[in-house]
C-alpha cells in the first residue's frame, strides 16, 4: 500500500532515530549545502553558546579568523581574560538580531549611537554600553574608550570583509533600547555598568517579523560584501537567564527560542548557501533526557557541547592539508616576544655595578 511517507529517509521518522537507544548517536543534522575547509576564514558571533563554536573550530585546526588580537606583549591567558580571541573581534556576546544589524552599521559608520559611555561598575572610569563586560577594569575615560572602539570597529569591518564563513548563534529576543535612537544594548544599564533609570531605556521583546527582518538585512549586507559567503545559523540551547516579561522565565524562553528558530528557518529558505545547524535541538532533545544541562538546568555541560560540536565538525567541515603559513612579519614578532620574555630574567641579572 502506498502513502506519502513511503520510502522517505530514516531521518524523517522519529522511531528510526538511533539516538533513542543511544543518546550519543543522536544526529539530526541534514547535509549542508557546503563544506568548510581548513583554510576558510571563519567568523563567529552570537550569544554565549557561540563562544563554544569559536573555541572548537579553532581547537579542531580550522581557521577561526581573529582580526582583533591582543598586542603581542600580552600573554595569551591575560588576553583571553580580556576577551581577545573569544570571537573574531572583541564585540562580546551579540544576543539579538538587532544587535548584529547595529554592529554592522556601527562598523561601517552608518549608525553612530547617542550613548557613548556608561560609568564603570565601581564608579570609576567608563565602560562601553555596547560591550559593557569586554574590558575588565573598564576604560580610563571616554577618550580611551573612543580610541579602543575605533580600533575595534575597524577590526569588525576587517573580519566581515575577509571572511569566507559566518556562523551566527541567535540567543535572545528581549533587549534594552535607547529611546533616543533605538540603539540596542546587550545588557540593561545597571547590570554591568551604567545606571538604570526607567526613563532612559526602554524594554523591547522582538517578534518573529522583527527578528527575521533584522537577521535577513544583516546577512544580505554581509553577502553583498562577500558574495561567496557561506552562512551557518544556530539557535543557542542555553535558556533565558531572566525575562522582563511578566510571566515565568520558562514560558518566555519557549516563545523566544521559537521566534529565533523561525527567523533562522526563514533566512535559510530566503538565501543561498545559508544553512541551519540544530545545536538547540541536540541539547534539548528528549533523547538526551536533559543530561546536557548542568545542575542549574541552564548551562550546557561539556559533554553536551562535545556532542554538538562533534556533529558540526562531522557534517560541515573537511580537513584539508593546507594549514595557514606563518608570515615573516608574524615570525619576527614572535621571535621578538620570546627574546623579551627572556629579557625579564636577563635584565635582572646584568647589573654589574661598575661605573659609580
Amino acid at each position, binding site marked *: 500500500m502506498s502513502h506519502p511517507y513511503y520510502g522517505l529517509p530514516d531521518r524523517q521518522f522519529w522511531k528510526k532515530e538511533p539516538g533513542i537507544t543511544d543518546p550519543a548517536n543522536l544526529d539530526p543534522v541534514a547535509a549542508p549545502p557546503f563544506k568548510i575547509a581548513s583554510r576558510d576564514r571563519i567568523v563567529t558571533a552570537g550569544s554565549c553558546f557561540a563562544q563554544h563554536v569559536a573555541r572548537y573550530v579553532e581547537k579542531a585546526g580550522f581557521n577561526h579568523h581573529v582580526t582583533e588580537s591582543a598586542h603581542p*606583549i600580552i600573554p595569551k591567558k591575560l588576553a583571553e*581574560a580580556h576577551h581577545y580571541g573569544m570571537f573574531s573581534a572583541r564585540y562580546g556576546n551579540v544576543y539579538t538580531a538587532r544587535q548584529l544589524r547595529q554592529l554592522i552599521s556601527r562598523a561601517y559608520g552608518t549608525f553612530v549611537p547617542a550613548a557613548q559611555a556608561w560609568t564603570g561598575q565601581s564608579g570609576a572610569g567608563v565602560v562601553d554600553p555596547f560591550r559593557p563586560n569586554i574590558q575588565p*577594569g573598564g576604560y580610563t575615560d571616554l577618550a580611551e574608550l573612543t580610541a579602543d572602539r575605533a580600533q575595534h570597529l575597524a577590526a569588525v569591518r576587517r573580519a566581515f570583509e575577509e571572511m569566507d564563513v559566518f556562523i551566527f548563534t541567535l540567543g535572545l529576543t528581549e533587549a534594552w533600547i535607547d529611546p533616543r535612537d533605538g540603539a540596542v544594548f546587550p545588557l540593561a544599564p545597571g547590570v554591568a555598568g551604567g545606571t538604570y533609570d526607567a526613563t532612559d531605556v526602554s524594554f523591547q521583546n522582538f517578534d518573529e517579523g522583527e527578528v527575521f527582518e533584522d537577521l535577513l538585512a544583516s546577512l544580505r549586507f554581509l553577502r553583498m560584501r562577500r558574495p561567496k559567503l557561506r552562512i551557518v545559523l544556530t539557535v543557542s540551547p542555553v535558556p533565558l537567564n531572566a525575562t522582563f516579561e511578566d510571566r515565568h522565565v520558562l514560558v518566555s524562553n519557549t516563545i523566544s527560542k521559537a521566534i529565533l528558530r523561525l527567523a533562522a528557518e526563514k533566512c535559510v529558505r530566503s538565501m543561498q548557501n545559508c544553512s541551519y545547524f540544530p545545536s538547540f535541538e541536540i541539547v534539548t532533545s528528549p533523547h538526551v533526557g536533559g543530561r546536557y544541562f548542568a545542575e542549574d538546568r541552564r548551562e550546557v555541560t561539556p559533554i553536551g557541547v562535545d556532542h554538538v560540536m562533534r556533529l558540526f565538525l562531522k557534517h560541515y567541515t573537511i580537513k584539508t592539508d593546507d594549514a595557514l603559513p606563518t608570515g615573516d612579519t608574524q615570525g619576527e614578532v614572535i621571535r621578538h616576544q620570546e627574546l623579551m620574555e627572556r629579557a625579564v630574567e636577563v*635584565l635582572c641579572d646584568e*647589573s654589574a655595578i661598575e661605573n659609580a
Partner: protein
Amino acid sequence: MPRERNILLIGHSHVNCVQAAARRDGNLPWLRVINLRRLDAETSLDRAVQAAASGFDPAAVCLCLGGNFHNVVGTLEHPVPFSLGTMGIAGDPDYKPRHMIPRALVRALFRQRAYPDLVPRLYDFFPQAERLMLNAPPPVADFDHIRAFPGIHAGKLGLGPAPSELRLSLYALQTEVFRAIAEEHAARFITQPDAIFDSDGFLAKPYFNNDPTHGNQAYGLEMASLLQTSLRCAA
C-alpha cells in the same frame, strides 16, 4: 646596632646597586640586602630568606621586587608599535598608527609581573617589622648609553628607542600598580627623590649603570639614604 634602625631590603636586580653601595660605604650596618636571584636555588625560599637574614632583626622590611618590566616592553620600539591608552604620541611628525592597548590591560599585565603572591609571603616572614616597598628606578632616556651598554637588547637596536612618552607612561603605570599592591599589604610605598630624575622624568645621567636599565652605586647610595630617612620619618 639597635634594632629600631635596621632595614632589610629584599628584591631582585634593583637591589644590587644598594648592596654594592653598602659594601663600598662600609658604614651602613643598619642595612641588609637580599637579592632573591642570588639565593641558593636548591633551598626553599623560606629557609633561604631566613638564612640570609640570620642575626639581623629588622625594624622594617622593604621589598623591591621585579620592576624592570616597563623596560622589557618599552625600551626599544616594538615590531608592532603600541600606545598606552590615548597617549598623545600623535604629535610626533613621523606618527604612524599604533596598536592601542587599554590601560586596564597593561595594568593587569604589570600586576602579573609584580610578584603579587610573593609580596605577602616575604612580609609574613617578619611579622613584627614595618612594611615598606621601594619603587623601581625610572627608565634611561639616553639611547647612546643604551647603544653602548645594550645588554639583552644587543642585536635589536635597529628597532630604535620607543617614544619617550610611551616609556614614561609605562613607568608611571607600573608605579601605580606597585603603589596599589603596597596599599593592599599595608606597606608604605617609597618613591624616588627628585634628585635622581632628569628634567623629563627619566633617570638622571649620574645614576646610569653600565647596562640599559639599572641604577649604579651612586643611585644605590641615594636609595639607602632614602630608606633611612623613610624609617626616621615613620618613627
